[in-house]
């Protein structure tokens, strides 16, 4: 029997780091979630609250509204990015003039930190200073006000996320498309399949593992967006763009309600896991039926 000792030895540094910076804080958050703890309260320190924080969550309209808003946001951006990313990936598999230049420019958003993306978009869309409201008003008479109109702020937050992350989806799908063997595609063409049928019955099923990976990554990212939206709108106007990550940030940091904020974090983590699991099961079943 081969010894696994060397394998564990090589893995151990990573596992130790993961345990310290990942698992221990996670356990701590669970512990804090069962306490009342606000550093600016008259009584310092944590006091045991049992499941009270979780009970509060069920009736907390602000939390539930932020969670629903986030689910809508996630569905909108992930779907848009997937569709756009697929179209662009397909386009990039072909040769056309300026393809290399486009590919270079196109991936630039990926290297920009989310906080910088938010700041840049804010500078572009802030009324009075940004070029986008200026030209929209001058050319089309549209008064674009992200601080005033909820729908403008929402649309801008969605567009910003799509701009930032579609390149990632495209690159991943492009890698997947490049890895598809040509034989099944050619055989299908020889058998008389048209382009749509090839795409629908050959390309999509073969790409399913890549699509699943991309969708999971993007769902998890979109559910915890904070910094971009924080910079762009601060969650406003009103609560129009207060996504759940931003809501939790406010409860934990400015409000210093650590216990309740921890409970919220755990619930959102649970929702994320359940969503991904349901999606995985659904897509896996679709794959089995096709087979």
């Amino acid at each position: 029997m081969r010894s696994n000792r060397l394998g564990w030895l090589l893995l151990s540094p990573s596992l130790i780091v993961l345990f310290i910076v990942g698992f221990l804080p996670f356990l701590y958050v669970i512990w804090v979630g069962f306490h009342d703890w606000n550093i600016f309260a008259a009584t310092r320190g944590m006091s045991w609250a049992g499941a009270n924080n979780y009970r509060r969550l069920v009736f907390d309209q602000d939390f539930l509204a932020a969670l629903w808003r986030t689910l809508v946001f996630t569905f909108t951006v992930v779907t848009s990015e997937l569709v756009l990313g697929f179209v662009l990936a397909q386009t990039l598999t072909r040769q056309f003039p300026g393809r290399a230049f486009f590919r270079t420019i196109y991936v630039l958003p990926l290297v920009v930190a989310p906080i910088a993306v938010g700041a840049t978009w804010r500078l572009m869309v802030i009324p009075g200073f940004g070029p986008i409201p200026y030209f929209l008003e001058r050319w089309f008479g549209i008064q674009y006000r992200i601080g005033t109109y909820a729908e403008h702020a929402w649309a801008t937050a969605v567009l910003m996320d799509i701009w930032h992350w579609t390149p990632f989806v495209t690159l991943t799908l492009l890698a997947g498309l490049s890895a598809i063997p040509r034989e099944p595609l050619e055989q299908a063409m020889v058998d008389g399949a048209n382009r749509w049928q090839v795409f629908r019955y050959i390309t999509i099923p073969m790409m399913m593992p890549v699509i699943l990976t991309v969708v999971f990554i993007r769902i998890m990212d979109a559910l915890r967006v904070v910094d971009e939206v924080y910079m762009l709108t601060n969650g406003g106007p009103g609560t129009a763009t207060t996504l759940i990550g931003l809501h939790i940030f406010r409860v934990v940091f400015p409000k210093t309600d650590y216990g309740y904020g921890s409970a919220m974090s755990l619930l959102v983590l649970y929702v994320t896991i359940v969503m991904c699991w349901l999606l995985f099961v659904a897509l896996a079943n679709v794959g089995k039926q096709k087979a």
Partner: protein
Amino acid sequence: MLRHRLFVTLSILMLAAMVLAACPAPVAPPAAAPLAEGEATWWRTAAESAGCVGVTLRGVSESTPPSNFAKDVLAPAFERDTGIKVELETTSWDQMYDKAIKDMEAGTGIYDFVYIEQDIIYAYLANNYLLNMTQFLADNPNLAAPDFDFGKFTTFIDYFKDAEGNVYGVPMEAFVKIYLYRTDLFGDPEAQAAFKEKYGYDLAPATNYEQYRDNAEFFTQWGKDRGLELWGTTVQAASGHPSSFYELFETILPSGGVYNWGINMENWKASVENGGTMNSDRAKAAFQFWLDMLQFAPPEATSSTWDEVAASFAAGRAAQGWVYGENAAWIASDPERSRVVGNIGVALPPLADESVLQDAEEGRGYIGYYDGGAFGIPVSSKHQACAVLWNQYIGQESVQADWAVAGSRVVMDSTFDDPKVQAMDEQTNGYFTLLKEKGYLFAGAPPFPFHATIREVIAPFVYRAIAGELSAADALDQAAAAVDAELPKLGYGE
């Protein structure tokens, strides 16, 4: 292939050139005047005796003109005179708090000094975050600088003392939130005649809400008629950012006769039915007045924090407004950043009625916000003695005048008499005189240890009112009820 590579290389070079072109050339900050030989020797000796030479002090502050002066001018001078390097991180207001509080609560000792805004000091003292400087200097007389004396500061230093009079922070900025107006517009004979014809009285800087509203309406229409990018007022109404809460609760409500956020400090209740004034008729009227001003404000108003308000005013987009005093000097004097140089006037903020001024004169209330902060030393700092030296260095009388000119802040009485400050006073049409003579009418934030927590309870209602989801009255009713419910959870008013 070669052509392809050339194309890619040129693309990358072009992008790099665009990025580099967008970066401004670094401007060398003015250097602080060298100290006299004896003084310089004292600082060096003190640093050596405390084992601080070669040490790097780390601090965090909000990115404001006074903080940037400390970073760009005072820190290099301090290093020159002591051999102690200072890395001052100037960041956004909320990030600054986030970092400082996390560091002090966890006791990690990342920061050796932190900016303490006047309104948060009570929370820091309640949590024993800060070093008692009075005690430290008494215990270490060899580290007490000859040019440093707590007694030289204005009464603003009192905000940073405990009940026994011990000082926990050295004031580095203090200013009032003033009423700023455009002298060129208010002095325009054509505008004056048109105003008098329309409203029946003389155009002048506002002293009350009605006059402020008339001015705002008039200049908004004036700008529209002439195709100017001009509106009647600034409003710090970023819906989603605490700055809108602060303008309402620390500037507008006091000018309407509602003090201490409307919280009754005897029973810690906010609603009228429980003895507070947060949802009183006066508070609702003041809030409604402020919301009404949005129609006369530039389109960026609902995205404007304190920074954008100053920028809007400096860009000449508003005829009048409530502006933090730290911006007065650069708006009045820096032609590279301001389009209204030589055209600004300062005055006391407009009030709901005369009773507010009377309250302030007699010590029962205040007419606006006296803002400012200090550098304090966390007890978790690993270089407390070195940080005490830094705090004394920035608290020397000799560095105050240049700092005041750069950041329109004054923390010592003697600074008002400096020729540089008096010259700037003329440029700002009397900002420093107003600060000196009328500063007593303003007040800092109430002494709430729960400041940030309760602000976050109230702020969402303000945001929703700005967004039009709630009326002013409903927002204050709901906010007061929420505060009454939250404070007992924090251990107040049970």
